[in-house]
């Protein structure tokens, strides 16, 4: 166990309930999972299966009722939310360096980051002047500028159109290939999970229903390849079975 906790984030028999109208509603129900370092782990599940709650617990934004969560000591965690959540009163540049202490802003590094997310020329623009996709890219840059060891992403591309979504997925893979960050990515889209994930957890009724390892599939992935189609069919079958229970 000691070795595993150094390698990444580990959760064991995690339980979390919400109180809804005098009723205890279990969201996470004895979840056990491991999120390896320098890898993109995807948490896949239907709406309301506890994906976001799990991510918020990992990010320290919410507590849990029982179980254990082990995060490597001193590890910096960055978050990209479903919405861009940019500060409307700050320019793109200032939003990106928002989490950095004043003296620790390397102009060159920020410029490189802006280039990576394709926002060059928009440094002085305000969030309201950007499209939804551009705002989401700025939010991604903000999380990356913070230089976290672990990035938690909560359906960050869900609100984007097909093409922007595809660009952003490729962008994430490119950034991951360059910087080798640990990423935990929550989504309800099976295709998205297959495109970017190296490990996929299927979360259902508050438990990790199945785990798939895709680390053997190099990027960029072809969704129509027979192997990925096979995995997709398997995932759909599991998710359908579970939901009909």
């Amino acid at each position, binding site marked *: 166990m000691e070795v595993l906790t150094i390698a990444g984030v580990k959760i064991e028999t995690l339980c979390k309930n919400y109180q809804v109208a005098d009723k205890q509603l279990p969201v996470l129900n004895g979840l056990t999972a491991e999120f390896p370092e320098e890898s993109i782990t995807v948490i896949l599940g239907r709406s309301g299966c506890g994906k976001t709650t799990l991510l918020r617990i990992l*990010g*320290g*934004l919410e507590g849990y009722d029982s179980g254990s969560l082990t995060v490597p000591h001193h590890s*910096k*965690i*960055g*978050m990209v*939310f479903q*919405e861009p*959540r940019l*500060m*409307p*009163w700050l*320019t793109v540049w200032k939003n990106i360096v*928002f*989490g950095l202490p004043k003296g620790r802003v390397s102009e060159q590094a920020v410029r490189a980051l802006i280039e990576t997310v394709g926002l060059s020329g928009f440094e002085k623009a*305000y*969030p*309201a*002047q950007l499209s939804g996709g551009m705002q989401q890219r700025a939010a991604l840059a903000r999380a990356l500028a*913070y230089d976290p060891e672990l990035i938690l992403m909560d359906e960050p591309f869900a609100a984007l159109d097909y093409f922007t979504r595809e660009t952003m997925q490729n962008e994430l893979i490119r950034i991951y290939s360059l910087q080798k960050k640990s990423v935990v990515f929550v989504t309800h889209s099976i295709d998205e999970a297959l495109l970017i994930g190296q490990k996929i957890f299927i979360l259902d009724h508050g438990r990790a229903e199945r785990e798939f390892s895709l680390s053997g599939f190099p990027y960029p992935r072809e969704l129509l390849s027979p192997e990925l189609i096979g995995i997709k069919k398997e995932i759909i079958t599991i998710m359908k079975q579970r939901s009909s229970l």
Partner: protein
Amino acid sequence: MKTFWKAVLPVAVLLLLWQAACNMEIWSQYVLPSPQRVFQSFEAMLRDGTLFRHILVSLWRVLSGFSIAFVLAFLLGILAGVHPASAPFYKHIVEFMRNVPPLSLIALLILWFGIGETSKLIIIVLASFFPMFLNIKKGLAACDVKLLEVGRSLNFSETQLFLKIRLPNALPDILVGMRVGLGYSWRAIIGAEMIAASSGLGYLILDAQQMSRSDKVIVGIFVIGLVGFLCDRLFSYAIQKVLHGGVDDSWS
């Protein structure tokens, strides 16, 4: 340019009607002095400096009272905004005081503090405190939880959350409160000066009335409106600069 003429037209029509009424001698010169006579008085008061002296006295009172009120409203607004649970302690007092016109307190204030500057400062503080306090409180308390979570995910301390998210997020409300507060204090000081003062624009009007100089009364009213309008314009310009950084709708 079109907007300029649209703004000038109603003023010109009013002036013409006023002049026509005077020419027809419907009312005596005492009841309705002619525009020329008002302008001549205005010119004379500008030249001998009385107008500026009274404007400066009133402005100085407003600015000092307004500054004191702002500091008080800001400190108490932070307390109330950051700790909404403290509301039961002050809510009823604020609601009670908010509905008491500061001018109704002038008799007591003169009794306690005399007719010097203190009673007038208190009137201004009372007039401008509540809109500023309520807006500052609202702005700080209504901070979007989603933005605060961004700060928490970046490991901000409570002080950083306040200085980097809560406060800038509340800035539009704070500035709107200040703008309303400034307008309120301007109105209150004129009233206070009409009751107990030996200088200021309120006194100028009262003094002119007692001397049966309705032309000077109109000059006083005109200057009060003009100074109030200019202060408000200046403030709204400052708000626009601060909030939007020169960009429209940057504050959603």
